[in-house]
């Protein structure tokens, strides 16, 4: 299986479908400890991404990711817009002009994405943010690549770890973002951004796995 620009487009479209599908759930999570817009924010952004993809055919994986980044930045707003935007932008820069992604390049991209989010948002692991999904995702991705996984396998490992990471945000007290205003009352709720990160990764991994077919 190859992971070329077409596969990345398919993965992004799958991510968009996941954002639409889980809109209500993400908004509900955000209502509990935030302001109840996370699902709406992402759905708005990815709808715009799909419209852009329908109208253009970026030629490299990086070009696809850059288009996603700029579109999310200009349509999502809120905390998650610049953070996801930065993530996709840094990933695009990190993978350079490769026409296909192997496992190692996926790790490179994911690592840059996570680092970008941390650089912008200054959250540490355990602060109950999307970083708590992205950090284990990067670690699992690296392990999968080390044992020879291809792009899809690496993404899949990342998605599994992100899901666990998102799940593990429930007992945490938030220290970044709106949920931090709640102090101890943020405990017992899953972080919406960590949840969306895991859902997007899962959708992209599944699409990448089917992408060569």
């Amino acid at each position, binding site marked *: 299986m190859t992971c070329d620009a077409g596969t990345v487009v398919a993965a992004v479209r799958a991510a968009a479908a996941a954002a639409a599908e889980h809109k209500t759930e993400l908004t509900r999570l955000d209502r509990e400890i935030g*302001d109840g817009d996370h699902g709406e924010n992402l759905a708005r952004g990815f709808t715009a991404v799909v419209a852009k993809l329908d109208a253009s055919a970026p030629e490299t994986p990086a070009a696809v990711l850059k288009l996603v980044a700029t579109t999310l930045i200009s349509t999502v*707003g*809120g905390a998650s817009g610049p953070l996801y935007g930065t993530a996709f932008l840094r990933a695009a820069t990190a993978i350079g002009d490769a026409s296909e992604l192997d496992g190692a390049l996926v790790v490179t991209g994911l690592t840059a994405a996570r680092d970008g989010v941390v650089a912008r948002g200054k959250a540490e692991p355990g602060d109950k943010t999307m970083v708590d999904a992205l950090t284990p995702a990067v670690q699992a991705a690296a392990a999968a690549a080390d044992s020879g996984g291809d792009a899809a396998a690496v993404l899949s490992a990342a998605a599994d770890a992100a899901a666990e990471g998102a799940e593990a945000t429930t007992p945490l007290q938030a*220290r970044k973002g709106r949920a*931090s205003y709640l*102090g101890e*009352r943020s405990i017992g709720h899953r972080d919406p951004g960590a949840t969306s990160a895991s859902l997007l990764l899962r959708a992209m991994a599944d699409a990448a796995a089917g992408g060569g077919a």
Partner: protein
Amino acid sequence: MKKIINDPANVAREALQGLGEAHADLLTVHFDPNFVTRAGGPDTGKVAVVSGGGSGHEPLAGGYVGEGILHAAVPGAVFTSPTPDQILDATKAADAGAGVVHLVLNYTGDILNFETAAELAEAEDIKVVPVILDDDVAVKDSTYTAGRRGVAGAIPWYKITGASAARGDDLDTVVEISRRVVANVRTMGMALTACTVPHSGEPSFVLEDDEMEIGIGVHGEPGRERVKLTSADEIVATLLGSVVEDLPFERGDKTLLFVNGMGGTPSVELYLAYHSARTYLAERGIEVARSLVGNYFTSLEMQGMSITLLKLDDELTELWDAPVHTPALRWGR
């Protein structure tokens, strides 16, 4: 969800259209990307003042665009900070060559998006200085939080910053005065009811008939604690108690007292609370030199209020009193 709206996805846009139509003499509403500028265009030779935040806080921020206060406002989606391209376009439209102050309320999303916009503006040779408001004493400013929120203190902050720009102060001076307001303003709010984000359709939280939420933000976030509903005097004492001790405000201080409704609070309750607050402050020897009472920074249809106290010096008082002409604030002309 009971609202006077059409498609929930279009609420912010249609309200902006109405704002533009009702006040075409004062301001111009731009769409795609959305931002609001003064009808007259940039203010030649003067520092430009730009702010914004999520929609759902009306009349903030578009209602404060006009002579003597904001040059432009950037409304995001409901309760969502605007995006950098909106902010950039508003900044470019407002800029008159003397620099631009970004008045940013302290929320992660607003900080990040204004940061990006400022970088983009600097790349186009526009000098941008951000000033960040974090007046909400309900949130403790510690490494355990994203810092205090910016809430209703925004109104006097906009007004005084804008008046400084209007009298022709240079960028450094406008920024200094704006930061002086931030240093001297404190707010705390409470809610009797939650609000419902239109596209969500569900109330942001649920309060029993005998409960209220203390330390509420302006986005329907739950607050610091949920307690039994008490009398106006007790509510005011709770809010003002936190506000007064935080700065602290002291006997002999001259202040601006601002009782703000959260959108669904009628004038009769706000004036009643104002009376209670006056009494509270009088007992502590804190002078109320200026006042503002009304629904000025709202959370959709939420019932509740916040109380803001700003310590005034002569210059801040003079800038507060200076003429202003916008849909939401108007005096002196």
